[in-house]
């Protein structure tokens, strides 16, 4: 049928540059690929233990633009300079995907302070510092932008498997989404979160590893595949979603209670 009236919905990201953290593998890798497919140039950030060059080459061979960024999430200077570095190669960063996080599996009373510090730095401090540097440049350049934080259903639901710090920091990331959305609304910077449940290669599968039959506990007897997050990511970065900010989208197939 004739498209009438045309739905106001575009997923064309041509001309935009995205920076994705934790993009070497798993969900972050998929996010980077989907953004490229939608027309964005993508800075692939990961720490030095995770090789990102193969992904950059793959994207460029397919005609996309990408650059690799070495990023230690516990190093504030590197976090700040990463945005400028991406901008130099690919142009002003208008989309930031805060995806990198580490899951902790230790009882609170047994957790080493070093692990606590790494988790707080990676899961809270890094996305905050990155978001601030991202926003600072956009505000100066008077450009609109989109931040998508990748939290986890562990923020709302924690079982007794040593996930206290992961769960706390995910809740903090969700609150960060809301507070920064309020603070930057006037600058047309939208801040939203995706809150995945158990996905293959997601953090939660690691955090809640209870053996091979995890899906049996869920109503639909399945864990998510990375591509089942495509529509939520594209919805949040879509140029048509200018009214969508300060919202956190649970994507968990109702695996967890409400």
């Amino acid at each position, binding site marked *: *049928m004739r498209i009438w009236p045309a739905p106001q919905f575009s997923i064309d990201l041509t001309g935009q540059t995205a920076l994705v953290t934790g993009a070497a593998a798993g969900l972050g890798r998929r996010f980077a690929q989907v953004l490229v497919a939608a027309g964005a140039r993508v800075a692939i950030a990961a720490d030095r233990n995770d090789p990102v060059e193969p992904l950059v080459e793959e994207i460029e061979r397919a005609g996309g633009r990408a650059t690799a960024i070495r990023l230690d999430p516990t190093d504030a200077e590197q976090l700040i300079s990463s945005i400028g570095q991406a901008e130099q190669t690919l142009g002003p960063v208008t989309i930031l995907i805060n995806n990198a996080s580490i899951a902790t599996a230790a009882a609170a009373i047994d957790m080493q302070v070093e692990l606590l510090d790494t988790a707080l730095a990676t899961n809270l401090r890094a996305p905050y510092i990155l978001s601030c540097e991202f926003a600072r440049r956009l505000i100066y350049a008077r450009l609109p932008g989109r931040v998508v934080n990748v939290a986890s259903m562990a923020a709302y639901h924690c079982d007794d498997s040593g996930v206290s710090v992961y769960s706390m920091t995910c809740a903090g990331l969700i609150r960060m989404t809301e507070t920064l959305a309020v603070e930057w609304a006037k600058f047309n910077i939208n801040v939203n979160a995706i809150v995945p449940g158990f996905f293959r290669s997601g953090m939660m599968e690691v955090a809640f590893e209870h053996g091979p039959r995890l899906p049996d506990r869920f109503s639909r007897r399945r864990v998510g595949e990375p591509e089942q997050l495509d529509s939520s990511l594209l919805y949040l970065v879509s140029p048509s979603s200018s009214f969508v*900010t300060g919202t956190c989208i649970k*994507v968990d197939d109702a695996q967890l209670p409400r």
Partner: protein
Amino acid sequence: MNRLTPNYSLDLSGQVALVTGASSGLGRRFAQILAASGARLALAARRVDRLQALAEEIRAAGGKAAEIPLDVTDADQLAAAVDQAERTLGVVTILVNNAGAPDAQYATKMPVELIDQVISTNVRAPFILAREVARRLITHGLPGRIVNISSMLAYDYSHAGGSLYSITKATVVRMTEVLAVEWARYNINVNAIAPGAFHSEMMDAMIERTGEFRQRFPRQRMGRSEQLDGTLLHLVSPSSDFVTGTVVKVDDCQHPR
């Protein structure tokens, strides 16, 4: 080498959508967008003349639509509406619970009739409709999508004179969550949209009474109904099968968090 194709289809052909409150405002736009995406549309509301005009527009554009006169405060009519939609267009696979009633009154001044009307329209009707649709889907072994229209007033109540509206919209949020859990095993996804201040018949009537208030918002603007297109399409998209039990706030940060 081929580029990866994102998993994002907006093709609703073969599906039947029932939209309540389709005669005006957001509901009318939801119906148009679902029709433009290929769904057959059951248009429900009290004002039949408006439904007929919209149904004709959809048919003129090559779509299929049926008008269903419906007073959502009448439980018998709710079940009958779902039957009528099914007889005319096929099994309803998408339900948009959009019809809502404002109170615009101080709690102490609410007559019981108004209390009953608001609770009945905003909570009882969407619950009964969701059940009627889900029961038929379960019988046929079909997956489905339910989208409830809540409101940011479910979370933020800062101006007196809308307490029961706020209460009932919070109830819709919780209804969305509990039904998503209950029907997950049947592949029926239940989600909600919580819009901020959008232009609609209800809202424009309120602005008439109270004056403009958009200057209070960080972006000093009200929403236009087409700014909900992407949110509706995300929730009904065949690619969003993992998205259930979520409430999407769409308010441009008009409200605090």
